[in-house]
């Protein structure tokens, strides 16, 4: 029999206590996995959206920390187009609006002759025919969530729109959105002549240095405006940052609860086993070996709890993606990085949770611990 066998047998032969501890850790880690996965998924989804649009630069107006960018005059487009290396630019307006029973749906207004449409594939119906047409196309997830098909009418804010088509995009965010002609959204959101983003394509062969020069030029010539490389927008988006901060804050709470749970359980097990620790000390175990015994036990429990928590977290994300309230709004980003993070957190919990009980057990005096029944 070796030392690790003692650790293992202690856990396996106290099944109820081990399972309860494991469950406590698993719930904490599941919360971390689910929340982090959703936050990361939100960010990734936006990154994929910009990648799908094949956009080199996104021009937007920096405001105070509002979750949505501030609208600005669409005449800015002509000025941007006059800059060197800029080949195409198209404006878009976006807003979160209520559509019938759905409280917050992302609605885009796109220029009908802009390049953004290129990456969408029509699933059913047709694209909006003109700026004056009260029509909308729905992403496949949005159509499913809103229970609308081609020919249905949807009430968006105060206006009725006919669903003229449904589309599929490589980006989850767009699949959950409704898109209409830019002037239609400008009208119903009272943003006539305004856009929230300009999507810019640079001339083929533009070097990163030249792209950076264009960005600097935009910052310089148009005070208050910023140009981001497509990948940076998600990282700088206030809504995404807020979602991430919230998910981290909630995860932190889950972690604190998890850590206290582990510490409490390990501490209880040390109290419960004071007499046993006394026996080990009496028959000559070194204090360092007893510290290792307690720490290994708590780390083994945390590792297994972490693994179970990952499973539960993945299940929770899958359920969130199916639940009526969150369907179409949540996309989990699940992968090895998240699993590694969750396991690292679980192990850290095990070490932290076991540290004080291990220290306490190592301070016991054998004759006192033996008297403890």
């Amino acid at each position, binding site marked *: *029999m*070796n*030392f690790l*066998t*003692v650790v293992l*047998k*202690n856990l396996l*032969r*106290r099944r109820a206590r081990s399972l309860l501890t494991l469950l406590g850790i698993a719930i904490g880690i599941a919360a971390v996995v689910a929340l982090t996965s959703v936050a990361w998924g939100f960010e990734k989804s936006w990154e994929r959206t910009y990648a799908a649009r094949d956009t080199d630069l996104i021009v937007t107006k920096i405001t105070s920390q509002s979750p949505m960018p501030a609208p600005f005059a669409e005449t800015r487009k002509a000025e941007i187009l006059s800059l060197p290396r800029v080949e195409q630019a198209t404006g878009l307006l976006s807003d979160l609006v209520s559509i019938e029973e759905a409280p917050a749906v992302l609605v885009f207004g796109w220029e009908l002759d802009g390049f953004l449409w290129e990456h969408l594939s029509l699933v059913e119906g047709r694209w909006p025919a003109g700026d004056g047409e009260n029509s909308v196309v729905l992403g496949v997830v949005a159509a499913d969530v809103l229970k609308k098909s081609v020919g249905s009418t949807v009430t968006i804010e105060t206006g009725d729109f006919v669903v003229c088509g449904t589309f599929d995009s490589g980006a989850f965010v767009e699949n959950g959105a409704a898109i209409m002609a830019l002037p239609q959204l400008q009208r119903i959101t009272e943003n006539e002549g305004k856009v929230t983003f300009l999507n810019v394509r640079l001339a083929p062969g533009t070097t990163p240095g030249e792209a950076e020069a264009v960005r600097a030029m935009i910052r310089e010539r148009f005070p208050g405006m910023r140009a981001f490389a497509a990948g940076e927008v998600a990282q700088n988006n206030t809504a995404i940052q807020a979602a991430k901060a919230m998910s981290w804050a909630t995860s932190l709470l889950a972690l604190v609860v998890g850590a206290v749970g582990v510490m409490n359980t390990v501490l209880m097990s040390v109290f419960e086993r004071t*007499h*046993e620790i*006394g*026996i*080990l*000390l*009496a*028959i*000559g*175990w*070194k*204090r360092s*070996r007893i510290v290792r015994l307690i720490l290994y036990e708590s780390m083994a429990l945390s590792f297994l709890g972490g693994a179970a928590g990952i499973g539960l977290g993945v299940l929770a994300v899958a359920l969130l993606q199916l639940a009526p309230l969150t369907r179409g709004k949540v996309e989990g980003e699940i992968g090895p990085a998240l699993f590694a993070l969750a396991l690292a957190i679980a192990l850290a919990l095990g070490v932290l949770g076991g540290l004080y009980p291990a220290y306490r057990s190592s301070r016991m*005096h*054998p*004759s006192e611990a*033996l008297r403890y029944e």
Partner: protein
Amino acid sequence: MTDSAGEPLIRARDLWRTFEGGRVEALRGANLAIPEGSFVAVAGPSGCGKSTLLQLIGNLDRPTSGEVYFRSRALGEIPDAAAFRARTVGFIFQSFHLLPTLTALENVPIPMFEMPWPSWERRRRAADLLRAVDLGERLHHLPSALSGGERQRVAIARSLANEPQLLLADEPTGNLDSESAARILDLLKSLHASRGMTLVVVTHDPAVAGFARRILRMSDGRIVSDAPREEAGP
């Protein structure tokens, strides 16, 4: 107090052990010398300080004043008390003190972790010791599946794990019926005879003390008599 010729294995000088800031005096100036290879009983009523004396001899506790010497070396000067206990002393307790989650064959090698033996060697030695205490058929039983007498035999096998020079038994038959108690005493006696180790048994039971060659009688924290069995009286 009496002493044998030559350097004793254990010598205690003016041992005091108090608790609760001096309000409780468990030992009040105990002196003794135990030669190597002897079988000594420490007898006396409950609360007379005999278990405290045993814990001080086994380096499980430290005296408030005075000192215990093992082969002339003060226990207080031994830097690694745990290693001393593991390699030199075997303990047998009234309540057996087995680890409840480990089988007999897993309990016995627990003290062997401090020895440089590989896992298979520990297992072989443990199995041999359990066979020696007639538990060859109970190797894979948890303590909860063993009788009191069997548990104490596992504890005795464990106390012999590292071939100690000194075996300390605190009321080893206190929790056993008379038949099991007699068997345990026979076993201790035969182990003492066959292995030649020094054996100190603490007991309040005159019948148990009767097995020893020498009896130290304690009362109120002091050793009041020290005599060979024949002279010790009831």
